[in-house]
């Protein structure tokens, strides 16, 4: 009788939902094709790509060395603009990280099975993004060699860090975030590493993957704890990911500076982070999908479609936050707040400047670049046609990436450069050193990701297998469902 009901549910299920893995691929097909990415011999394009990314990364590291050895002065920062690209880039990269955790944790908790095809890659992206992010707060300080003062360790000076400082919160939040992400990612990797171990031809690879596979043997007495562990990690990562960007936003929200001092920041930052993060996931996966056609069946148009929808949603949330900030400034009737929003950001030479009869804001272009990329660009995703036009999607998500960088730049620099006392107002101009460092982090990020693609399974095989029909213990290989799926598919 169990079977009877199951076939019925089966049919219901099959007609209503498009399968997550198309062309009715078998479990062994998954194993074969995902593993092959790692096993086949290194493709030319990989070497070519590395030849670009590695030098860029190295240049970035050179900029770091130069800055540390010479002083923060090699950047364009000044009084009053004490933070500029350094913290902008920090927030930018941290934000990107969030999509990974979101996909792996939150979508897991909400039983979004489609996450399985993309969570591995996006978690990797998280880690690499956080690596890049970590560089900036570390070296933006004037005396890096004294940074250990931040650690709450008993010392002969009997003095401790200031636990009230949002910067110290950052230290804890970001390091925790990185650690937990690594654990989460690794736990997920273990079964797939076992796969690679068992498929490995040469002894060496077998040995190496073997070590990291920890002797995994798929025993059910392991799976039950494993699943629990995975669930719990997902459970704690979810508040963590929300907290991290909230804490980052506290750096600004807890200050007294007009334009920073805003209670809306935490949710607004988190939304922005997810927004930017998904954009970056797509930025990476779309090319990967081209390079490895077999991924097309795993990362299907409906995945992209879903992600576009999330971008559209979060993009609109961010847009709402911008509007709300503006409204609060006006509603608070605080001239300093109004000044920052109207005369440091919005007022452009053509429309709003003349409209409010104020001169153009020095950074109006940054503000409108942000609005354009973050609020207007994603609106094209309302149409399904656009969501399935991969070229367009790729363009839009890259606009979003840029937009999110501008958002942080706008928040940090335009608030700082003209605050309370007009006498102290100034401008900020970046130097080659900080531009080089920013570009360099992209080099680092991509290099790491290329290495990841080459040596680790890009898709969580064991998880994808679960979502296949045949993984269901009540599923019967024969029966009409197949044709159904295929029909729906075509």
């Amino acid at each position, binding site marked *: 009788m169990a079977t009877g009901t199951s076939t019925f549910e089966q049919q219901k299920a099959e007609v209503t939902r498009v399968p997550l893995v198309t062309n009715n691929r078998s479990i062994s097909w998954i194993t074969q094709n995902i593993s092959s990415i790692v096993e086949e011999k290194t493709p030319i394009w990989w070497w070519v790509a590395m030849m670009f990314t590695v030098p860029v990364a190295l240049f970035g590291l050179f900029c770091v060395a130069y800055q540390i050895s010479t002083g923060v002065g090699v950047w364009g920062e000044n009084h009053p603009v004490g933070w500029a690209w350094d913290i902008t880039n920090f927030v930018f990269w941290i934000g990107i990280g969030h999509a990974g955790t979101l996909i792996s944790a939150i979508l897991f908790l909400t039983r979004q099975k489609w996450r399985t095809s993309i969570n591995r890659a996006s978690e990797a992206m998280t880690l690499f993004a956080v690596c890049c992010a970590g560089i900036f707060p570390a070296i933006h300080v004037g005396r890096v060699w004294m940074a250990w003062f931040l650690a709450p360790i008993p010392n002969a000076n009997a003095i401790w860090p200031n636990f009230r*400082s949002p910067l110290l919160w950052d230290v804890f939040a970001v390091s925790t975030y990185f650690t937990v992400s690594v654990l989460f990612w690794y736990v997920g990797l273990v079964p797939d590493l076992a796969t690679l171990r068992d498929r490995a031809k040469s002894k060496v690879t077998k040995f190496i993957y073997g070590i990291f596979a920890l002797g995994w043997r798929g025993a059910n007495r392991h799976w039950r704890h494993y699943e629990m562990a995975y669930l719990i990690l997902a459970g704690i990562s979810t508040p963590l990911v929300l907290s991290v960007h909230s804490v980052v936003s506290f750096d600004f929200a807890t200050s007294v500076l007009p334009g920073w001092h805003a209670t809306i920041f935490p949710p607004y930052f988190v939304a922005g982070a997810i927004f930017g993060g998904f954009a970056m996931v797509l930025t990476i996966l779309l090319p990967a999908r081209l390079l490895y056609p077999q991924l097309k069946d795993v990362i299907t148009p409906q995945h992209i479609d879903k992600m576009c929808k999330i971008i559209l949603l979060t993009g609109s949330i961010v847009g709402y936050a911008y509007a709300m900030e503006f409204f609060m400034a006006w509603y608070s009737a605080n001239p300093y707040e109004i000044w920052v929003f109207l005369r440091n950001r919005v007022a452009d030479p053509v429309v709003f400047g003349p409209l409010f009869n104020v001169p153009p804001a020095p950074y109006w272009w940054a503000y409108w670049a942000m609005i354009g990329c973050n609020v207007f660009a994603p609106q094209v995703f309302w149409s399904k046609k656009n969501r399935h036009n991969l070229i367009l999607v790729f363009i839009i998500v890259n606009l979003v990436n840029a937009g999110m960088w501008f958002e942080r730049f706008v928040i940090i620099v335009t608030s700082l450069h003209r605050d309370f006392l007009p006498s102290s107002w100034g401008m900020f101009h970046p130097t080659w050193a900080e531009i080089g460092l920013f570009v360099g982090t992209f080099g680092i990020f991509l290099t790491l990701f290329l290495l990841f693609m080459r040596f680790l399974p890009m898709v969580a095989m064991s998880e994808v297998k679960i979502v296949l029909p045949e993984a269901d213990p009540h599923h019967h290989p024969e029966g009409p469902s197949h044709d159904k799926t295929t029909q729906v598919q075509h």
Partner: protein
Amino acid sequence: MKHIFHHPPEKATGRKYWRSIGQLAETKEFQGWLEREFPEGASELKADGVSRRSFLKLMGASAALAGMGLAACRHPLNLVPFTESSEWSIPGKALFFATSMPWRSGAEPLVITTHDGRPTKVEGNPRHPVSSGGTGTFAQSSLLDLYDPERSRFFYQDGEEATAEDFEHSLDYMIGRLGDGSGLAFLAEENASPTRERLRKEVLKRFPKSRWAVYEPLGNELADAAHAAAYGAAVTSVFNIEAADVVLSLDNDFLGSDEVAPVVARGFANRRRVEKPGDKMNRLYVVENRYTITGGMADHRLRLPASQVGHFVLALAKELGVDAGGITAEGNVELPEGWVREAAADLRSTNGRCLVLVGNRYPVAVQQLVAAINEKLGAQGKTLFSLPQTVEPALSLSDLATAIKEKSVRTLVILGGNPVYNAPSDYNWRELQESIPLVIRLGLHEDETSRVANWHIPAAHYLETWSDGIAYDGSYTAVQPIILPLYNGWSENDLLAKFAGQPKPKGSELVQETFRARLGGADFAKSWNQFLHDGFLPATVKPGALSYRGSLPSAKLAAPAGPGAIEIVFPADAKMDDGRFNNNGWLQEAPDPITKTTWDNVAWISPKTAKELGLKHPIHASEHDLVEIAFDDNRKVEAAIFIVPGHADNSIALSLGWGREVVGKVGEGTGVNAYRLRTSDSLYYGVGAKITNLRRKFPIAHTQEHFSMEGRGLVREATLDEFAENPTFVKDNVSPPAPPNGVSLYPHPKLTSPNQWGMAIDLNTCFGCNACVIACQAENNVPIVGKEQVINGRSMHWLRNDRYFVSDGGEEEDLGEYASDPQMVVQPMMCQHCENAPCETVCPVNATVHSDDGLNVMAYNRCIGTRYCANNCPFKVRRFNFFDYNQRPIGKVKVPILGEVSGLALGPLTKKGMADTLKMQKNPNVTVRMRGVMEKCTFCVQRIQEARIAQKVKAGSSSDTTIPRDSFTSACAQACPTDALVFGDIADPESRVSKLKAQQKAYTLLEYLNINPRVTYLARLRNPNPKMPDAKRTASQAEPAHS
């Protein structure tokens, strides 16, 4: 089990530098100097208890101290004690010496702080009425000149380095062959030193045919001439501005560069201290072409091209019924309806308790007419007084020039000054000087003049020399060496003594002689010691009345500037003076009081004229339009323009003292030389220059880009009457409003110390003269950062003077659309020591926290430099060491591929370390900050601690640890010539600061943030004459805090 370190004895650190002094110890004059010291114990100072002998030993000691202080690693360091005790000197304890700074308008009485024999700080002499403890900017900065590593160190004969001995020999030889002195001429600076005057007479006695000329580019030649014509040559006049109810300044910047005596500023300020509603204050009318800090204080200001001031004076004379005699004027000038009438009426109404001042480089006729006006107003004996002339009249530069042209000068001795650089361009002084067979030049620096001199002799700084002077009030002041000449310099007295046929003086004997002569009988030793201890003898002659013998010349004032003919005005520079301070980093980087420019001079121009010439104010501070200012083909310069609100139309001001050709690294390539435009008949201004827009840009570093307060309640203003009606106007329409008192989410921890430090700043007596800025820099070892860094917005001043232009309309200065004629307000801005300081909570390492006596303290050694505190500081007063400003070259350095690069940006590739002499200037009680740490005003915490410790030491085994009331103060407050800044204990209701804070016009900034600053401002008041045409706009300019 512990490992014990052992160290063999090693070479002393910090010894290296002192080798030079070591050599000094060998030299003859020094040995002589030693034995001479105790002729009969006469010149030992009982009072201060320091014998001159101790100096060298103290230096030896401080060598060791310096070595210790600057050593980086811990093991091993050596302690180097003296071999012999030196009386009264206690290592690490400051000693104070009274002296005075020679200046053309009278010596400035000073007290010098020394640490282990190193002068480290200049303060005013509190006992002297002229100073009362205040100082001017120049006195404060002169300290850096003493230590200038580029000061002249060597003797030069025709460009070849020579020794002092060589020089003395050839000098003796040369003097021997001078005969009656015909062909011998001296060119000196204005200086009323009686000793110099005495030597001059002796030289004249020995060489009756010799010539003695005096030249000061900013001197009082014309003023003296006018004065002589009006009152006779025997007397000089002083004015008591404190006695004047109404002052009319005709382009006389008596609060700024024209009259540096602190007594004038103080006297003026004393009449503007309004404590409660109903108090009276004086009224100031100013007529000037450009904004000066005097103009900034004006109650009524009329902007008028300098060339029209004469016409104004005529109009005023007519109004007052003064017979202008033969003085007429070409062309006529439109003056605002009623301005002259009402001003005149106001002056008259004071029957004599008023004063009309005119710029001291205006044509003699104009100045004579002003004298006549003062006479008519009855200022004599009320505000104007006479003092006997102490200096014999001398030849002028033009007389000397003619003599040289006639080839009747064969030996020229130039004592200081720099005529090749700053003589009127029509003299072609360089050629003249080259035409002289023998030129001996005594100078602090190897400069333009020494380049065309046969002998260059390094001059001793006034802090290294024995001399004397006459202060503004006629009192006799001492100039005594605080330190041995660092570079073996000679004083002008040394040189004159040789000419007078005496040996080069070994010490104070020359001055003692003068002193003896002045003193008459009396116990010499005692009174001499007293004199050195106090630094002066009180004025013997009381100011008397002037006798006016009105004889106005017949003169025709030239046609004034107009749209066609633009005038160029040559004001004294607020920082370079006549150029003598050009190699002084503190002054180079001090922002100009009005334009806030540093490291350059700029051509000030009015918005209207600028528009007419198609010149714009740059959006990026570093890109100013370049123009060419030309009178003819060889009288022209290229200058960057700076649009200044309130500047007179058709008039350009280009300050003197810049664009030096031969100068040290600091002054190299700064500014343009306005002397090129200046001729003997246009000493102050010249009409008819051609201005061409070169369509090129030039970077100008200034510390304040935005001119308008944007309607924010920062400087709060009212007129005297408004204050009387509404004593609490400062609290009105403040937006956002201050939270009701004591409202807070949580209880604030109690500040437990018995003393709570705070400051009050009276905006009504602060002119923005920069004395406090430099004083702070000297006291707190604040580094200079160089032009490039200032452009990048990284100037390090802990204390800055914010200057705003206030006017009815909300102009957008940063767009170049200026108010044509706004008013000016100044606001000193330093760390406000907020009780709830936003900077503290954000510091992740507790590097900046609050002390129990209410200071926002900054622990440099804990700071890791996140800059978060600076971002969260509402006043942006925190300063970050972006580079290693103390250890790396500030300027450009040459490197192989890249060419000229900023030394700072090269960082570790450059040589580390600061000049040894500069180390000597550093205040040993303040940490010299390294790169990567944040710093800011500490309320001079080192002084606070000193006071507290002193009291505790005094208390010993008793419980009396309370610091005496107002027994010390911060560097800025001490330097302030007008006591506008007052520092003290606000927990003590009787302290000066508490009293000021209790006033009704006291307010703090940004109340709405609930940060409780410890710095309180007293609102600015103006006292407009209701009848004046511009009274309306002057009235109620109180910047309404936002509405």
